[in-house]
């Protein structure tokens, strides 16, 4: 049986797993954005703290994903087997590119532009929202794009702790020593990643053009 025959014969399960996958990525990205964007903005003016926070996020990034899922299982509140643990781990992974690109994007805005904005009498809030954020947006979106693509890939491993998603097929295929079943999980996941990448790339370009 070919991988696409597998997909055609099990449309309901494939559909359900894909939705699960998108749900895991969506939830973890939402959390990572809700934390990463404001913290990234706040870190711009705090150089010492920025090194620590980015360093910590960097270390999280280096933990192998399977290990991170495993570490989180015994943690009270967030831990346990299932989707919530996976979402926490995935959010942690997505944090670094979002934090980093938010900081860098804002810091790379031409200092002359920011100085003239302040000098003309814009309040700090107006400088942030009307000048720094729009000019940093392409870099910030590039970070979100990287985080989303990483997240779609890492989410396949979340099946190992019972979170569901397209990884379920991959692990089943590994257990059955059946490459076609592995591909039935891997190929749709790859397509999701490509689609997300293209969509966010388009969003980035249309914002840059605006």
């Amino acid at each position, binding site marked *: 049986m070919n991988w696409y025959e597998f997909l055609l014969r099990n449309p309901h399960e494939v559909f359900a797993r894909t939705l699960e996958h998108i749900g895991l990525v969506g939830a973890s990205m939402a959390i990572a954005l809700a934390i990463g964007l404001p913290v990234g903005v706040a870190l711009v003016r705090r150089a010492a703290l920025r090194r620590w926070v980015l360093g910590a996020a960097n270390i999280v990034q280096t933990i192998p994903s399977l290990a991170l899922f495993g570490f989180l299982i015994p943690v009270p509140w967030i831990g346990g087997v299932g989707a919530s643990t996976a979402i926490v781990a995935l959010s942690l992974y997505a944090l670094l590119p979002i934090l980093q690109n938010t900081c860098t994007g804002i810091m790379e805005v*031409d200092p*002359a*532009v920011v*100085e*003239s*904005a*302040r*000098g*003309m*009498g*814009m*309040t700090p809030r*107006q400088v942030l929202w009307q*000048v720094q954020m*729009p*000019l940093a947006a392409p870099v910030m979106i590039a970070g979100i794009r990287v985080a989303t693509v990483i997240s779609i890939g890492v989410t396949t491993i979340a099946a190992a702790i019972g979170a569901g998603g397209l990884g379920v097929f991959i692990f089943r295929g590994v257990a059955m020593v059946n490459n076609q079943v592995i591909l039935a999980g891997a190929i749709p996941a790859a397509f999701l990643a490509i689609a997300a990448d293209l969509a966010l790339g388009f969003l980035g370009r249309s914002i840059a053009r*605006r």
Partner: protein
Amino acid sequence: MPLLTDRLQNSYGLEFREVDYRLPSGAALLSGLNLKIARGETLILLGRSGSGKTTTLKLVNRLLEPTAGEILVAGRSNGSWDPIELRRKIGYVIQDAGLFPHWTVERNVGLVPTLEGWPAEKIRARTQEVLSLVGLSPSQFAGRRSSELSGGQRQRVGVARALAADPPILLMDEPFGALDPVTRAGLQKEFRALAMRLQKTIVFVTHDVREALFLGTRIALLETGRLVGIYAPADFLKAREPEARAFAASLETDGGHEEAR
């Protein structure tokens, strides 16, 4: 606010009283500055890099706060104005103009009026007025982005933006510093005429003696954070202070240098 404008119009422009500015490390960028700037004059702050010219300028609109002494704007310590309100009453032009690249020329020029909540019709009219004032045709330039402008045009827009809300004081930090000599000479000439017409109190930072002599009603010479002297342009070349002589001497060698560039 009308109150501030009235006060500015009824008194002289600016005064520095025993102003020091030190970095947190203790290094003094400006020490014991005493300086009075009359209403309607163009005072040049002349000096080498690191002499404290830009620091002096930024103390006026409170982009920097003095570590000692006070700066009077319209006879009142500028520390007592709200910094945002103060800055909207003081035009500010810097090198490279600092235009917002994601906004059109029209929106850039209308910045302060927009912040001040003027009605849209009035902003549009005023934008067109100041663009014409700096020699840019509104119909041709209003819709452009700063990336579609030459260096000289960008600087004109910068001046238009500073003039838009009709502030009584203009601060200019080497506004023509990054331009080629031909464009710079043209803008200097136009700017001098404009300054005479508008009767603003202008503080103009430069390290170019030629520009200082051409534009200034008076020249304040700074050296490593201290005021060397204040001169009328006619007296500057005759001044005996070593720093003034150094600048005068640079003028003599400058001719060949300028052509070589």
